[in-house]
């Protein structure tokens, strides 16, 4: 490695990135993804539009309706309409669930007879449907047990302790995972373009004809993107801490080290794609395909790795996002740091990824016309 040569290439790449509008992508894309996903994805269902048809209009039924009205999960409209009309409303997607309280609700309850409450849930969006169903059941059971003062004999009290995310905030659960996704996609896309752009344009001849070695060329392409995206590590951290108010319990240094390593992994993936493709458009499509989808599936945002079985479990271990996200959740929510052997191991694994990917890139890079 000759430092002077690297410096020249880096200066060239940086001025090109600055003068073309590519620099906007470097900083706009990660932040945009972060804000969109951070504000856009909600696992819990809030403000579900629920219509209660209260055919009883009694004290007890009012009490039940009140319980729903006070819940943050529901936006309630109480109406008197017939069932068909209510179903029609669901069909038009104007309400998400309907609860039908029968006319004899209070009377039967007071007599100790069992009474039926009808619930219709729109399950067109299945996970939302299931969640709503359990919320509705929870509210009704809760209300019912409060109304019936019967003391059961032996009972089990559940004493739950939620770790890491006591308030069960969606932000805390999603935002750290998002950093892992964003830092996988954004650096890879920029890096994927760098070499293939020179191939398309013809300036790759400068490399072919120069005494520059393959490793030097790769380093020259890698370092500018690395430097630019290193700033994103801090920008994303600021969004997470101050905009989404995610706690930060671990060591900043581990966050920094792991993130820099991870960016290197992401850039190496991009460079590898850049080495094997011939046109920019194919490079972009390929990068999106190998980063966004696995990045999302194996980030742990949607589904924890421990829940995966079979093929997907192995696949999750192949993609680097799993290792980085483990460290991310640790520094944000857990704070064990290097005392955990797993964190140590995963840092090493990330470093191994960098070495393997870059070696492959150097190996496959051709210093001749094909």
């Amino acid at each position, binding site marked *: 490695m000759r430092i002077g040569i690297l410096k020249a290439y880096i200066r060239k790449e940086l001025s090109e990135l600055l003068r073309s*509008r590519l620099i906007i992508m470097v900083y706009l*894309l990660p932040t*945009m993804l972060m804000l969109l996903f951070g*504000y*856009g994805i909600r*696992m*819990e*269902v809030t403000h*579900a*539009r629920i219509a209660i048809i209260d055919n009883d209009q009694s004290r007890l039924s009012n009490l039940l309706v009140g319980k729903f009205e006070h819940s943050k999960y529901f936006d309630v409209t109480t109406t008197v309409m017939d069932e068909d009309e209510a*179903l029609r409303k*669901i*069909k038009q*997607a104007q309400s998400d669930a309907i609860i039908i309280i029968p006319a004899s609700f209070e009377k039967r*309850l007071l007599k100790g007879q*069992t009474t*039926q409450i009808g*619930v*219709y*849930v*729109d*399950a*067109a*969006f*299945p*996970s939302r*449907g299931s*969640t709503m*169903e359990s919320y509705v059941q*929870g509210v009704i059971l809760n209300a*019912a*047990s409060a109304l*019936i003062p019967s003391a*059961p004999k*032996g*009972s*089990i*009290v*559940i*004493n*739950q*302790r*939620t*770790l*890491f995310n*006591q308030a*069960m905030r969606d932000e*805390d659960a999603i935002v750290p995972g998002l950093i892992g996704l964003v830092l996988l996609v954004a650096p890879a896309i920029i890096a994927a373009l760098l070499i293939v*752009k020179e191939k398309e344009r013809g300036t790759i001849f400068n490399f072919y004809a120069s005494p520059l070695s393959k490793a030097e060329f790769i380093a020259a392409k890698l370092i500018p993107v690395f430097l630019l995206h290193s700033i994103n590590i801090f920008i994303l951290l600021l969004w997470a801490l101050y905009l989404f108010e995610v706690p930060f319990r671990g060591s900043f240094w581990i966050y920094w080290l792991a993130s820099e390593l991870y960016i290197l992994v992401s850039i190496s993936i991009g460079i590898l794609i850049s080495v094997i493709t011939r046109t*920019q*458009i194919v490079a*972009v499509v390929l990068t999106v395909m190998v980063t966004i989808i696995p990045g999302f599936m194996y980030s742990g945002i949607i*589904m*924890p790795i*421990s*829940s995966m*079985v079979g093929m*997907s479990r192995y696949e999750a271990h192949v993609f680097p996002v799993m290792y980085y996200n483990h460290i991310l*959740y640790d520094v944000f929510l857990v704070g064990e740091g290097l005392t*955990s052997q797993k964190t140590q191991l995963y840092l090493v694994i990330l470093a191994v990824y960098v070495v393997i990917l870059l070696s492959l890139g150097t190996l496959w890079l051709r210093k001749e016309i094909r």
Partner: protein
Amino acid sequence: MNRIFWSIVGKELIGFIRSWQLVLVVLYMFSVEVYIAGSGIEINPRNVAVGYVDGTAGGLSQKILTHLHGPEFLAPRRFNSQRELSRAIFDKEIIVGLVFDADFEKKWRQNKSAQLDILMDATAASQAYTTLNYLQHIVLDISKVNIPVDIVTHKLFNQNADNHTFMALTELLSIITMLSIILTAVVFVREKEQGTWDLMLLMPVNPKVIILAKSFSQIIVVMTGIVISLGFVVLGIFNVPVNGSLSAFLLLSFFFVFAGSGIGLFIAAVARDVMQVAQLSIVVMMPLIFLSGAWTPIYAMHPALQYLSYISPLRYYIEGSESIFYRGTEWIDLWPYFMGVISVGGVMYWIGFRKIGRLF
């Protein structure tokens, strides 16, 4: 005029078919990609990993544990001490840990209230939440509390809450968005890059005809993809229920692809080369897809995003398609979706005509 229109459409279709890489990518997207999403992505809590420490001799604790079974739970793993258990949670090997104290069963037999300690990794918030819900049900069930309310739940439209069909459909809709935008944008920008733009401008033809014909050719490509994907993957493999009218869906798709190609036209008018098309498309498409309600219901979003979602044609398309497939909504009730898609498309073409048309 007719002949010019169809010659342009024919020319673009020939160009598309000849670039076999593009054909492959499009086919891949409409088939494999939809299949992967449908079979791979799972949003419902499934296979939640549970661990426990049992200080009792068994009995009640085992009774509770037998209720934790698939598909929601993996078989519970036993740990010897509470330390080991929490270690496993910290290492993300399990998400939920149950701790049965030594006097857990004794207290229950003595008709006192027995305490079950549950440790949960709430970084997987939705899994944790569902698990808690489940456990509450199980415990209520075991302790035989009589509540005189019988809840009869009907899950409408997708009785088994089958996630696969839903994800496959959502992915198909996202792919339609992506391709209708990118393909149209590339068709226009490629002329700029190849230098044939000038030739196009010199033809004694009304620019609007050229614009419409070029985008129409890509609409044909995407519509063909939709039909293939519907036939082989969405209906063929995943068996997505069709409660409404399939022709309504195809018509709605047509108008949506029209709107999408309008957005592509807009991008082409602004971009100078394929590189910029790629950048702009990513910047435009990401919000489009995530503001559509495909991932999160719109009413649960930040209010600012809720207003923004009105300009996303995908919002109307997704709601409309869900209504057609699952809710079985009738033609007459679908008008808001048609209106939404058509008006967004109309505005886009109006801008496109003005931006590109002026160059003619």
